């Protein structure tokens, strides 16, 4: 097969036989170590002369610091103490707005904010020492309700044909209004946060840790410690889950460990206990989303106004970008002839909210999807038909004005789920007349692959391959956090080089040894970094084919490596290993690093919030059947059927693993998971009180992989990491509505909320300011 080369590259590339590894499911490369108990996570490593580090935290939501008092009568020998005064560079955890200090100095802005640090070789003495630090404060009034906040971190307002909105509402058959609320959710990676900072002889720092984004950590450390690139190296260790929770917070912990390590002159390990992790690290943004929609009698959407309010917590951290993804996904997978979206993220005196799988989209998609069910009910339409009528099709434009050209699968996933879930007969079935009622609901969502807007253009992600005597080594900063990064990278590269999987090594993400491929977030690892690696591997193949032609004779354009041997047509020239060894001996090391660039025609305007918000979208439809017990008001999910268009499943087993895992995490969001704050403090900071689904809560899941290939993705792939988080919660709410006639406009749908909704009768509306978003109930 001959495919045209990308513009600006060498001529036609003879590709090895396609589909060698991509599309198959070989055992994951990190699997055996994990199953045999040999994988070393951060806390499994010991460092020579290592101390343990602990964080002194605030016990008030908002206050002025008067004094940080280290008890003068206590024996501090063997204990290293650090406050903001000891920071050599800037007291900031670098991210976007850089408003979050590494250690609070003058003002405390949330409960459990880091104020001082201690390190000691003896853990018992360390715990004792913690009790001898007193932070004297003058309390300030705390803002806990985002509706009452006057500090706006970010405000976006965008429109499509706004001039036609008034007309749409004037000629509407019906105007449907609804307000929907979501709460804090904890990522709950099973491995708590953990880092170890090792001081270096040159005054630099080597930081090991559980994380998603080594270069975020490196940049934060450089700024905090006023060090240059050469003196800060960050290495990711085997990471026990992330889900966004290890996107930005590891920078904070790394800064703490590094300050202690420099002060003590010894390695310092910080491993959070579950309680500290739950109480102090980032959560999914809570929020309220309100819809006002003009619809025709047949259910056609005529126009909509959408308001989004997210609670960012005490510092802006990632709120601006969480909000932009939330705002762009707020209109959902539908055609809006006229639409206006107004979205704000505001400050409260609660621990900062941040990245969590889906990144703003699950919140706004819950609202628009449940709103569709409200519209269907008010108009007496089938929710499936309403979605069919309004779903985006190829050639349509989204609310940001993006023309959808490729891989647009809303109708395809919807029809697949309608058929496999038995939608028509399932909806027609009696709901039951005893205490147990059954219901069926569905949702349709889209999820933008890669960074929002101009993110990828600004980042210029790089990734590469290095020739080894027997194959090649992948060089990328993308982290394996369980989702399968290293395995799919090896598959893509092996196929591009005509090699078996075993010939590919993947270098550990170490900022001193790999190029900056950007963070492992935003469903971008496969499409953006995988695609860049595939390009680099093809370039390496061209170089080796040219070299083989030069050394062994033949036409470089017609030489290809297939199954580990370079061939020209039927003629075998030399094995890959022979060519590689000879090339290395002859010409020295060979490293090819490429930079990602968007395919042509992708344009985004940051100021106007218009254009191609993402290069492409992934699509999913999900049907959920529930049983609601009207005696206990408990909802049980009986089964899930989901169809997801990921472009191409590089490794179908891992891909389905992402979908099943994301679906159950989303069912937790729908029914049980809620971080409760009391006076600004996380009240349920234990696994006894913050519950996630167990094997008994998880239903059987039927997954239909739809592969509507994206021509600019590696082998057609888009993104899958976040997509499964978006659809299940609104589908559960729709199924509860079908079963009971009660629309519960708030997550999670706890027995209390369902009972309240049933008392109110059909379709109650959550109103802003009823109870503070963060308040305990």
């Amino acid at each position, binding site marked *: 097969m001959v495919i045209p080369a990308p513009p600006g590259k060498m001529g036609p590339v003879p590709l090895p036989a396609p589909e060698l590894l991509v599309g198959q499911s070989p055992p994951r490369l990190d699997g055996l170590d994990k199953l045999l108990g040999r994988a070393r996570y951060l806390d499994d490593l010991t460092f020579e002369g290592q101390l343990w580090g602990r964080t002194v935290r605030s016990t008030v939501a908002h206050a002025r610091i008067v004094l940080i008092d280290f008890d003068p009568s206590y024996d501090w020998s063997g204990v290293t103490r650090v406050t903001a005064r000891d920071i050599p560079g800037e007291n900031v955890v670098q991210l976007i707005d850089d408003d979050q200090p590494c250690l609070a100095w003058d003002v405390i802005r949330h409960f459990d904010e880091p104020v001082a640090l201690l390190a000691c070789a003896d853990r018992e003495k360390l715990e004792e020492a913690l009790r001898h630090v007193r932070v004297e404060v003058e309390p300030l009034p705390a803002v806990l309700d985002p509706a009452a906040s006057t500090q706006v971190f970010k405000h976006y307002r965008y429109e499509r044909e706004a001039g036609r909105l008034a007309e749409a509402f004037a000629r509407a058959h019906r105007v449907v209004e609804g307000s929907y609320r979501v709460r804090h959710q904890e990522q709950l990676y099973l491995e708590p946060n953990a880092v170890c900072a090792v001081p270096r002889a040159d005054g630099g720092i080597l930081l090991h840790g559980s994380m998603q984004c080594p270069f975020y950590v490196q940049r934060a450390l450089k700024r905090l410690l006023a060090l240059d690139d050469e003196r800060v190296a960050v290495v990711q260790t085997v990471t026990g889950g992330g889900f966004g929770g290890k996107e930005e917070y590891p920078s904070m912990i790394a800064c703490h460990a590094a300050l202690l390590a420099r002060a003590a002159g010894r390695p310092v390990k910080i491993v959070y206990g*579950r309680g500290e992790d739950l109480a102090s690290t980032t959560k999914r943004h809570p929020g309220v989303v309100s819809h006002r929609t003009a619809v025709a009698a047949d259910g056609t959407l005529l126009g909509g106004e959408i308001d989004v309010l997210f609670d960012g917590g005490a510092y802006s951290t990632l709120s601006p970008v969480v909000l932009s993804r939330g705002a762009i996904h707020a209109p959902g997978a539908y055609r809006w002839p006229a639409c206006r979206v107004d979205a704000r993220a505001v400050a409260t005196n609660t621990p900062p909210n941040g990245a969590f799988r889906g990144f703003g989209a699950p919140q706004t998609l819950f609202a628009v999807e449940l709103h569709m069910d409200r519209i269907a009910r008010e108009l007496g339409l089938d929710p499936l038909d309403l979605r069919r009528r309004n779903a985006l099709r190829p050639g349509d434009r989204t609310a940001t004005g993006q023309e959808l050209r490729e891989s647009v699968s809303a109708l395809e996933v919807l029809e697949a789920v309608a058929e496999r879930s038995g939608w028509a007969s399932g909806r027609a079935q009696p709901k039951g007349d005893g205490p147990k009622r059954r219901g069926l609901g569905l949702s349709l969502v889209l999820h933008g692959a890669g960074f929002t807007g101009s993110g990828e253009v600004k980042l210029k992600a790089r990734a590469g391959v290095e020739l080894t005597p027997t194959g090649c080594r992948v060089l990328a900063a993308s982290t394996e956090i369980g989702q399968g990064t290293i395995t799919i990278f090896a598959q893509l590269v092996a196929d591009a080089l005509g090699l078996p999987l075993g010939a590919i090594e993947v270098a550990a993400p170490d900022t001193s040894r790999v190029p900056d491929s950007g963070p492992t977030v935003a469903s971008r690892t496969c499409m953006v970094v995988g695609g860049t690696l595939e390009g680099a591997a093809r370039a390496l193949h061209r170089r080796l084919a040219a070299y083989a032609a030069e050394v062994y004779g033949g036409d470089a354009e017609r030489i290809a490596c297939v199954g580990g041997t370079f061939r020209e047509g039927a003629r075998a020239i030399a094995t890959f290993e022979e060519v590689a060894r000879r090339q290395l001996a002859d010409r020295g090391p060979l490293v090819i690093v490429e930079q990602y660039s968007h395919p042509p025609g992708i344009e985004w305007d940051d100021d106007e919030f218009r254009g191609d918000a993402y290069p492409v979208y992934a699509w999913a439809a999900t049907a959920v059947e529930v049983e609601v017990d009207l005696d206990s008001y408990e909802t049980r999910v009986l089964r899930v059927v989901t169809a997801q268009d990921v472009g191409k499943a590089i490794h179908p087993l891992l891909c389905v*693993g992402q979908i099943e895992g994301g679906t159950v995490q989303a069912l937790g969001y729908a029914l049980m998971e809620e971080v409760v704050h009391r006076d600004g403090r996380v009240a349920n900071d*234990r696994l006894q009180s913050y519950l996630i689904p167990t094997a008994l809560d998880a239903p059987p899941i039927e997954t239909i992989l739809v592969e509507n290939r994206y021509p600019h993705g590696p082998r057609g792939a888009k993104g899958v990491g976040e997509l499964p988080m978006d659809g299940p919660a609104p589908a559960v709410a729709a199924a509860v509505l079908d079963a009971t006639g009660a629309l519960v406009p708030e997550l999670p749908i706890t027995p209390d909320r369902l009972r309240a909704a049933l008392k109110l009768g059909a379709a109650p509306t959550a109103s802003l300011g009823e109870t503070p978003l963060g308040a305990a109930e």
Partner: protein
Amino acid sequence: MIELVLDVNGAERSARVPPLRRLLDVLREEFGLTGTKEGCGEGECGACSVLLDGELVNACLVPACQAQGAKVVTVEGLARPDGTPSTLQRLFLERGAAQCGICTPGMLLAAQRFIDLGATPTDEAVREALAGNLCRCTGYSKIVEAVIEAAREARR
């Protein structure tokens, strides 16, 4: 301090430890068996599950003195004598039952205990047996599949 002597994965081990030291810490820090993980420290997540005289326990809740003279099996003791993975471990790998891997050691021991009991491996029975072990990555279906298959092979 007590002189703790016990059988870990078929070998006798000993250590001088405070009687209330957690078995989890003894395994990880005294014996270097870091395959057993800590997820919550209060017996809720099951990441530190080990077999103590054949019973499934959370090693974070077992004081060292209670393990005196006991037979302990950890994830490091599940492989075949030649170091290759057991049927259960192989099926976890083939079926995609491990992702981030941090719950995997405890999950394997809960599954092994279920297999050892010899009960009929229905979906419900397996889910019941694994209900004390949290996994945040997989959604459990792949784990349940692997355990059912391993239990069937063990009964053959």
